[in-house]
């Protein structure tokens, strides 16, 4: 059984937005890492991971994101995460991901923060 995830990359208001549509589990690793590596190769600095509120994230998915914050730290990139349900916001805080990535409820709020409008 393969759970597909759709990962797309777009640029908006000075940020690279990686849209994730689907469950973030071990099946998503290749697609998410490829999107991140491609954007990093293109010199992205502000990177927003835009989740869909109703999608599921398990510990394997969190491990993928830990791998990405590890890379982002080495590259001195800024990571933001948006669209998470309150449940996964809580889990990200519990695990400690929020030490390395800023959470915003919506994409608009994340983009506004990058523009200094909060």
């Amino acid at each position, binding site marked *: *059984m*393969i*759970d597909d995830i759709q990962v797309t990359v777009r640029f908006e208001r000075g940020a690279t937005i990686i849209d994730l549509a689907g*469950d973030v*589990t*071990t*099946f998503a690793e290749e697609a998410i890492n490829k999107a991140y590596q491609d954007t990093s190769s293109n010199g992205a600095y502000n990177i927003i991971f835009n989740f869909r509120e109703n999608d*599921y994230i*398990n*510990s*394997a998915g*969190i*491990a993928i994101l*830990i*791998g990405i*914050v*590890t890379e982002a*730290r080495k590259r001195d990139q800024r990571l933001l995460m948006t669209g998470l*349900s*309150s*449940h996964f916001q809580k*889990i990200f805080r*519990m*695990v*400690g*991901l929020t*030490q*390395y990535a800023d959470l915003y409820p919506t994409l608009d709020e994340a983009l506004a923060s990058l523009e200094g409008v909060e």
Partner: protein
Amino acid sequence: MLPPNTTRVVELKIPSELGYERVAREAAATVARRLGFTPERIEELKTAVDEACTNAIRHGGKSDARMKVVVVLTADETKLDILVKDPGVGDSPPVEVLAPDIQAQVEGRNPKGGLGLWLIRQMVDEAYFVEDDKSGGNQFRMIIYRVADEKHPTPEDISPPEVDTGGSRE
């Protein structure tokens, strides 16, 4: 909510293949909704069941789809009991569960991952491997109670009954 002294049992068998944990997760959520758990508690339960089944598939069943992972959901008026049974052909369960040190992972001092069991323990009221399993496999039990104050009931808690006015988890 169920009447006193009644139980409802749902038993699932899923292939030991990653992806099928979703079936168990959604089944557990459906049972919890029928019991009247809050949306927040249902999300916590889904995470716990998903992680437990993922562990059973990956470690207890070596991701061999010919094998089965069995999930037994037993509901009564006070709690939902979830038992996850795997064939036990892979790794033994860990003897201790440590909180993740994400800083060490990010700095490369610790391997990434290993969050599952710790996460389960944050999500449910009780979680433990059942010992003396005569079947030869692993059995992992999780319990969530309907009322927060009933997290760790003792025989004194069960009788005589008292009216609980402080619980928020229903």
